[in-house]
């Protein structure tokens, strides 16, 4: 038998979640989050294992997984850079920030740098429009950005 993606502990963590809902399928999003927490992204095999656990078809789980932009269905780097490209950040010049990121990291949106250090993605409004332009790296919000500040910030993510 092929080795499972989800460990016993991870399966138990998902079971603990669906116990609290009237139907198992309600834990689909939470289950995907558990998978991503341990594996950084959600592979086809992981989708199948979650589907079995929640009594859903793999297609049903995948339709949920591919709907939400923060469930990653492709591998991502150790750090994910989310660049806000919504209206206030646009007015305050986010395009300069993203051009600089693309040049410096030599990647485009949706790509990952060598050695898996950074993945670059665009994201909808981060809700910090009074401090635009803003980006989020992993769980850290960086606001009132300038190109100079950005270089120093990137150095802190190894």
């Amino acid at each position, binding site marked *: 038998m092929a080795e499972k993606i989800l460990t016993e502990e991870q399966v138990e963590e998902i079971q603990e979640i669906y116990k609290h809902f009237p139907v198992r399928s309600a834990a689909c999003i939470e289950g995907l989050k558990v998978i991503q927490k341990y594996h950084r992204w959600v592979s086809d095999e992981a989708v199948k294992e979650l589907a079995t656990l929640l009594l859903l078809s793999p297609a049903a789980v995948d339709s949920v997984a591919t*709907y939400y932009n*923060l469930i990653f269905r492709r591998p991502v780097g150790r750090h994910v850079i989310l660049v806000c490209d919504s209206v206030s950040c646009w007015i305050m010049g986010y395009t300069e920030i993203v051009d600089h990121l693309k040049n410096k990291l030599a990647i485009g949106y949706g790509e990952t740098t060598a050695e898996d250090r950074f993945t670059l993605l665009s994201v*909808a409004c981060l809700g910090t429009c009074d401090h635009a332009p803003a980006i989020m790296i992993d769980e850290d919000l960086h606001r009132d950005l300038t190109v100079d500040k950005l270089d120093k910030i990137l150095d802190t993510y190894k």
Partner: protein
Amino acid sequence: MQKPLTQHIKSDGTWLTLSEYEKVGGYQALKKALKSEPKEIIKTVKDSGLKGRGGAGFSTGTKWSLVPTDEQSHGTKYIIANADEMEPGSFKDRLLLEANPHQLIEGLIIGAYAIQASFSYIFLRWAYHLAAKAITQSIQEAYDAGYLGEHIAGSDFHLNMSMHISVGRYMCGEETALLNALEGKRANPRAKPPFPTNSGLFGKPTVVNNTETLCNIPEIINNGADWFMKLSATGEGGTKLYGASGKVKKTGLWELPLGTSLREILYEHAGGMLPGYQFKGALPGGGSTDFLTEEHLDIPMDYASVAKAGSRLGTGTVIVLDDKTCPVGMVQNLERFFARESCGWCTPCREGLPWTAKLLAAIETGDGKPEDLDILTFHTHYMAPGNTFCALAPGAMEPLQSALKYFKDDFDRHINEHKCPWK
């Protein structure tokens, strides 16, 4: 002036712990509410004039009164705090969630008691990591102190509460889409009727209220409907968290009487435009509201007045357009957002939004044709309210239709000069 939403918020960036919140009178409103009949609470909230602060502006008390009473319907009922703030340009709920989570929790418990719900959720947007920590700790504190769980504050009322953290998508802010997300599904909207107050989460009666709306509840219970009504400048009830972003001197948030003028918000509180920039227009309440211009600066920013001026109060967070920023580029940015965030469930939105975004991109880069403006105008009717399941597409058309009205010359210049005049 009195500031029921922000009066207790600390300046050091930390949130009020349970004991700090209790010291300033926290949870007194809950104790008072538990001694009244649920219908009395609904009446007080209705009389206060409180309307939804998430954008739709529906009377909160009326929404609560639509939930079947226990005599009409037995079984589970739900109440949900919509903390999925994702409207472009909006950052008001973030402050309340990060700085005083107990006020939201208390408002949510009182709302639950008013509709006799037994389970409550806080639906939090993924990006608010600090708020997630604050809410997690605060819910636990509330359980430990007996404000959640069984026999709340010694009464016969029982309520559980948990937080769901989203994994993205603007659609989750729409209340029926939010319910689908909470059920673990794609966040497509649902056809209405039935309305969530009759058939919501897992088919049970459910109320969904915006964060700012619920944060008003404890002080309405403490001080009464008349007091709340008198807080506003124009008689619609309460204060409002107004905000400003764009090229103004002091971007930020201010709690002001509901109905404060756009001029006061932008020129007193936001300090006016940055040196070298002129005011050209503004979206008064997030990305899905119609532009207002110079002629509208003195209108009161309340629901009725902004509607009369052809726009919506929305979230009350103003996005300012200056004279050095291209209005076509700004609308293109907005329509790209809406096209990307469309869930694709209904045709006008799925097909129409990418088309408008493409046409605007062509105009912005100098490839626009005069007839493109007619196609854009067609879309503003094609995606008008009533043609789609939810408000995403009609909302998306608001900045576009108003830009075509107020900035028509700027669209024409792009087409005639075959380039963006701002570049």
